[in-house]
């Protein structure tokens, strides 16, 4: 058997006075799939980073393949065949998939025989159930395709023990199934052992042998995945017997469309399909979910509606009159956008939490008058109010926003965008990388906005999220809308078929 077992014994890690890990033990049998569950900040990342040599544990030890191992630096883990697929992408955007694969090796020769390498990679790819174009720069791949490339890279590097950090968060149900089935097949064949960090209970039930739940740096429970149900797991994770209740749906969609998109077309980027939307509308008191495999025009649509991309033709209107998504217009018409990857697209990482919370409102007064001088005191008060209302956990309002956790960054963006009355809210992948509690909170906020009469356009790669929140669901493929169905009683398999086009 090529796969190796890994065991962590009584591992502890402190950051200053904060105990990130406290006496945590974990045993991953050779050729098994072990799930690591827990909220963000529970210590999952810290544990696997210790295991992979990015942190050095303060106490405890690791056994690799039954022998005590000293893992002081990533190269040590590498030499033992331990690898990880990160939630954040680690590929070089300007290099092609093939170049990324070759460059990721520890033994890249000084002069690369590209023809030879190509043959090896093509032979390797032929055995893979995932298809990726080898000559496309990674930067042009959609998030889902990039994630697949990350996993392929680890397999190409012949890792024998792999940590997958939320590997399916950007995949369609079919792709996720395919990918996890593939991973499962590899473990069954004794090729690799896997630790999978996930929030999805369905994946745990279907693809996992054993699991460990962490809560606040300690082991909260664990055992065989066969015997533990979703309710028990959620209870272990958040330490409360029940998960937050599903948000209630109040108010019926209006008759008139608030957002109406007609005949919208954009130029495609570099061989990709542009947008070609005949008609799309969203009404007040309505959430319209846009499902689709990433890279099928969702990003472009959000950019057009957010004013970051110009349409080649077609019209967008809000509340009956034409809308061009300028700053003043967005403010006057109360249109707000929650972009995906909020830290990159909707925040200024170097600037403070308070400045980021005022990114929309810094230059006008509460009653809409233009303001030339910044009102520092008013900005601080406003930030404080949002921090309290949305339970944002930050070291201080003056701390740079990039030091916050993903959940807290998203809380900041939500607090800023949902401030005041909102007529139209455009949301892209709002829960990507958030933990169970934060996901429930973010979804409840979106539902609450809908209930107060906001028209919501929800673009998400998480089909469960679309099914949970949407009043109406449309499917996008290759820039077009190919399917539409009411949210109530929608069939996930049917939607999935339209997403992939057969």
């Amino acid at each position, binding site marked *: 058997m090529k796969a190796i077992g890994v065991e962590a014994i009584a591992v502890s890690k*402190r950051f200053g006075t904060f105990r990130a890990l406290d006496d945590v033990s974990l045993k991953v049998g050779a050729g098994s799939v072990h799930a690591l569950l827990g909220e963000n900040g529970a210590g999952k990342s810290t544990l696997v980073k210790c295991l992979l040599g990015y942190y050095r544990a*303060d106490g*405890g*030890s690791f056994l690799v393949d039954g022998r005590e191992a000293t893992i002081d630096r990533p190269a040590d883990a590498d030499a033992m065949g331990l690898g990880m697929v990160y939630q954040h992408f680690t590929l070089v955007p300007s290099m092609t998939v093939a170049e990324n694969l070759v460059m990721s090796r520890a033994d890249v020769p000084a002069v690369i025989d590209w023809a030879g390498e190509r043959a090896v990679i093509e032979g390797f790819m032929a055995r893979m159930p995932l298809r990726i174009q080898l000559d496309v720069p990674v930067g042009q791949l959609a998030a889902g395709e990039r994630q697949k490339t990350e996993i392929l890279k680890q397999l190409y590097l012949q890792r024998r023990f792999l940590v997958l950090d939320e590997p399916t968060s950007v995949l369609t149900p079919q792709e996720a199934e395919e990918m996890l089935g593939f991973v499962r097949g590899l473990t069954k064949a004794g090729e690799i052992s896997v630790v999978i960090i996930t929030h999805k209970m369905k994946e745990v039930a279907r693809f996992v042998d054993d699991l460990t739940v962490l809560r606040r740096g300690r082991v909260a429970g664990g055992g065989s995945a066969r015997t533990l149900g979703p309710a028990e797991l959620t209870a272990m994770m958040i330490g409360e017997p029940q998960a937050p209740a599903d948000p209630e749906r109040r108010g019926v969609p209006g008759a008139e469309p608030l957002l109406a998109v007609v005949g919208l077309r954009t130029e495609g980027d570099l061989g990709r399909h542009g947008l070609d939307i005949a008609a799309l509308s969203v009404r007040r008191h309505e959430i319209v979910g846009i499902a689709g495999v990433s890279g099928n025009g969702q990003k472009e649509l959000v950019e057009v509606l957010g004013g970051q991309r110009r349409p080649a033709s077609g019209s967008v209107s809000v509340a009956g009159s034409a809308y061009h998504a300028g700053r003043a217009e967005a403010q006057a018409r109360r249109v707000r956008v929650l972009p995906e990857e909020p830290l990159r697209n909707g*925040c*200024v990482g170097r600037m403070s939490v308070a400045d980021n919370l005022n990114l929309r409102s810094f230059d006008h007064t509460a009653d809409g008058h233009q303001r030339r001088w910044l009102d520092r005191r008013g900005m601080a008060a406003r930030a404080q109010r949002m921090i309290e209302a949305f339970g944002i956990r930050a070291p201080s309002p003056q701390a740079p926003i990039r030091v916050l956790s993903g959940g807290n960054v998203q809380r900041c963006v939500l607090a800023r965008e949902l401030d005041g009355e909102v007529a139209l809210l455009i949301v892209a992948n709002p829960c990507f990388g958030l933990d169970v509690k934060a996901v429930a909170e973010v979804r409840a906020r979106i539902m609450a906005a809908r209930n107060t009469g906001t028209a919501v356009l929800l673009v998400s790669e998480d089909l469960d999220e679309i099914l949970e929140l949407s009043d109406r669901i449309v499917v996008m493929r290759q820039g077009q809308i190919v399917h539409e169905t009411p949210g109530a009683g929608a069939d996930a398999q049917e939607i999935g078929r339209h997403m992939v086009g057969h």
Partner: protein
Amino acid sequence: MRFQRLPSIGAGVMILARVAAVAAALLTGGLAFALAGFDVPELAGAVISASLGTAFGLEDLGLLATPLILTGLAAAVCLRIGLWNIGGEGQFYAGAIIASLVGLQLQGPPALMLPLMALAGFAGGMAWILLPALARAYLAIDEIITTLLLNFVAVLLVNYLCTGPMRDPHQAVTAASAHVPYEIPAMIDDLHLGLAVAVLLVVLAALALGRTGWGFEVRVAGANRHAANYAGMGVRRRLLQTMLLSGGIAGLAGMLEVAGTVHRLQGGISNNYGYLGIIVAVLAGGAPIAVLPAAALMALLLNGGIVLQSYGVSSYDVLALTGLVLLFIAVGEQLAYYRPAARPAIAPKPAPPLEHAR
């Protein structure tokens, strides 16, 4: 001993790191001088007493600091929107040319002519950065290259003008324009009002960048262009405005040098102020107010260089010293993020000897 990198550090630590870097650079330079056989304490004493010990020395310091404050501010303003204006030297010359032309060609009362010359200098600097600014805003052409290359054009242009069309026919030897008849009034003895103008501009720029909505947009656009676009800020317009402002400030420095100190247009009038301004801006961490102490330090180094030459130290050594300062600051800026890792609370289990041998 292991170190860990902190995600963020306070402003106080950052300032401390700069002060420590400057001290370390001066110590390293001092060591080199000592190895070359100089009496370092004596040299240091001479520099300090000549620069800070006499009214005359302090005035010289003020005269040197004036252009450095402005060229430093020009580079710092551009850094706020995330761009490098390496062309302060060229904009300085362009400002000096236009201001001299106005001063030589037009006649009027000094109270009118001096503001007019200042405006002309500002406009000259703006004109010199206009092409790089447009190329940056509309074609995303790297401003570092374009602003740098235009410096050489400006130097040659000044040399041409001073040996050709603008040459003073009464001066047979030096290549310089005729005497510009309008002089900036003095504050104290030789120290002209230019220093006050420079300080005032620093305060205005700090207010504009730190306290206005315009400055907020500039900073957002500089730190994350995606977010600025997303918030609907006119990034291109802010970029053009900021670059033109930067060029104008460097041009004004050229005008002050003509009307305040040299009173002629001549080759080498800039004395590398444009390039030194970049060091000043980096030293100041791009913060406008911090340009004042940074420019003062740079002026002290330059003035020290002049003093040192009388002790047989080459003028290139002082240039090397400013390079050391820049190098140490760049290193210190990164080191400031590192702290010794906390001691393990529990000693790690000793691994078996076999594993140790691996």
